[in-house]
């Protein structure tokens, strides 16, 4: 599903690499946590997988498609199938919740439809948004103002948007960094449950090794741009359990 070989990424051609010879293979449906201190290269790794950063050497393939060489339409097609959520700042506050959720469909919509949806959403489209929101238990916020949401709700709307994208791979970049411990546990178990139900692959970066061990199949530790530790979890904890 995702294969990374000897990946080297740097800010520019003179700078020292941020990611240094990373190799990683992830199977379809696998749930992998990536743990490491700030500045270890977790965000860089995710942004490179979605084709936002150039690859200096090595390769990334998503579903047998080589990421590094993609441009224009091919790159957009890749991004459609690789959803990304980050710790915050990624909803447009001035749009309402249903508009933010359906932004996940922009990759498959025509421009005319995108424009029309802003003013006159159809029932079918609203149902799709409501359906995605019900998966994150936020149906009641369908027509709310995004700026009125709390931090945890904000994050769940971002997850609903990712669901609308119908991704093969979900990259969650520190999704719980700005949430309290109880909410963090809820969001992580939600992500893992959704990955199980929808069959997408989940890659999630975290600060907290305990949380990683609790919810994920595999934990990878990155430090200074290198993988320093990999361990598979024996799964004896139910995902639905709420963190402490």
């Amino acid at each position, binding site marked *: 599903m995702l294969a990374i070989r000897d990946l080297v990424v740097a800010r520019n051609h003179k700078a020292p690499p941020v990611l240094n010879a990373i190799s990683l293979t992830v199977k379809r449906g696998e749930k992998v946590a990536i743990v490491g201190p700030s500045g270890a290269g977790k965000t860089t790794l995710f942004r490179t997988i979605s084709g936002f950063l150039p690859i200096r050497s090595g390769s990334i393939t998503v579903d047998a498609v080589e990421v590094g060489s993609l441009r224009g339409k091919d790159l*957009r097609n890749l991004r459609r199938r690789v959803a990304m959520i980050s710790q915050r700042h990624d909803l*447009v506050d001035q749009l309402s919740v249903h508009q933010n959720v359906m932004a996940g469909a*922009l990759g498959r919509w025509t421009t005319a439809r*995108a424009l029309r949806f802003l003013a006159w959403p159809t029932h079918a489209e609203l149902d799709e948004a409501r359906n995605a929101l019900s998966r994150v238990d936020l149906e009641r916020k369908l027509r709310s103002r995004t700026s009125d949401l709390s931090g945890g709700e904000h994050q769940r709307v971002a997850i609903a948007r990712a669901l609308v994208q119908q991704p093969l791979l979900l990259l969650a970049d520190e999704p719980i960094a700005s949430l309290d411990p109880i909410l963090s546990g809820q969001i992580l178990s939600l992500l893992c449950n959704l990955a199980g139900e929808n069959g997408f692959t989940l890659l999630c970066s975290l600060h907290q090794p305990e949380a990683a061990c609790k919810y994920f199949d595999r934990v990878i530790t990155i430090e200074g741009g290198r993988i320093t530790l990999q361990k598979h979890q024996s799964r004896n904890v139910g995902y639905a359990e709420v963190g402490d």
Partner: protein
Amino acid sequence: MSGLESALSLLRQFFPPDLSPSYLKAALVPLYETLEMAAGAILLAIIISLPLALVIGARLPGWRLLRSLLTSVRSIPDLTLAILCVVLIGLGPAAGTVALTVFYTAALGKVFADIFASADPGPIDALHATGARRVMVALYGLLPLRSQDLLTYGGYEFESAVRASVIVGAVGAGGIGTELVGSLNMTDYHRVTTLVIMLVALIAAIDLFVWCVRIQPKLLLLLAVFGAFAAWVNRPHLIALNHAVTTFKSMLPPHLSPEAVREVPALIGQTLFIAFGGTLLAMTFALPLGVAAARNIAPAFISFPVRRLLETLRAIPEVVWGLIFVGVGGLGPPIGILALGLHSTGTLGKLYAESLENVRPEPAMAIAATGGSTIAITSFALLPGAFAPMTVHTLFRLEWNMRAATIVGMIGAGGIGEALFNAQQLFFYDQMLVYVLITWTMIMATDAINTRLRKRWRVIEEQHL
């Protein structure tokens, strides 16, 4: 002594203003026409410039070309554009509306593009990550994220368009500017005073409207409806198209006789002299007035009237000052310097006062704690603290005054502007085009130098009123 007396008797000719009901009623027509031109032009400019700015902001194909096109159109002063439009379209408000539309499309396009460029990258990246096209990222991200600032700056530009709408009237593009020139030509100075008072009142009313819009954005709909109506009323008629094409042909190729070419350096020198002289004069007046207007320095009974004085100076555009001086018999660069100086005193005085008010209060308190007087606090804490922003404002004023210097030139202050206006009056359109191109080159060069200076000194661009 006799000099002072003649100046006083001249001043007396302007008072009292003609406030007879019949004239007031008659003057409302051009006043309304001015407002109509500004509203129609700003609406058209917003409609055209918003998609252009989105193309630049979303980095759609051709954005670099579009950006340099907007920058170069912006370098043609509004009055120069107005002359071109009067020549091509004919006298009246249609020419004024077209000139203002072109000018503000370029100005707003640049401002809006800058607003989009400073959008929060987080949501924008998230939208790109869904695989959305750039157009959709613009619709779902750039536009809603920056809507508030678009509204604020749209308001600023409307205010500025009303002032510019008076200016373009001076070359026959209709409105209160044309009425003003008419009254001056007939040496009817009482009416000139009436018109200037009405103008100041109109700009104060616009200020108030823009302030209300910031609180209640729905008021903007009123402006849109009025603007649409105004743009329709003042549309150029198609009959003029033939005339426009013929006139445009007579401008090509641009040509200047060898004698005229030899005079060009002197003309450029005069324009530079007006721009620098006007800015220097304004700095001299604006410094004490700015200190007197700063609410953290001067008591209210001083700062309040000084602020009203600065507002009045600012409300009267350079061209109107220039027209008044020309009307009472002045000519040449000195009146240009005086016209630029008076208007710039109004703007710089206000900006200096704001800079002084924005200085951190702690150093001032420390000096006050030593028992220092107001003068000591001002000179040892506030002025040094406000030095950097004041420099930025002055540099921007100098850049602005380069444009203004060519504009006041057209009404008799000399320099490249006067040469341009004379060529137009004599129907030497091929010469006129040469002077238009020279003006354009001068302003492009000034902008480029100023941008480099700002980059080197690391000073931030600020909204300039």
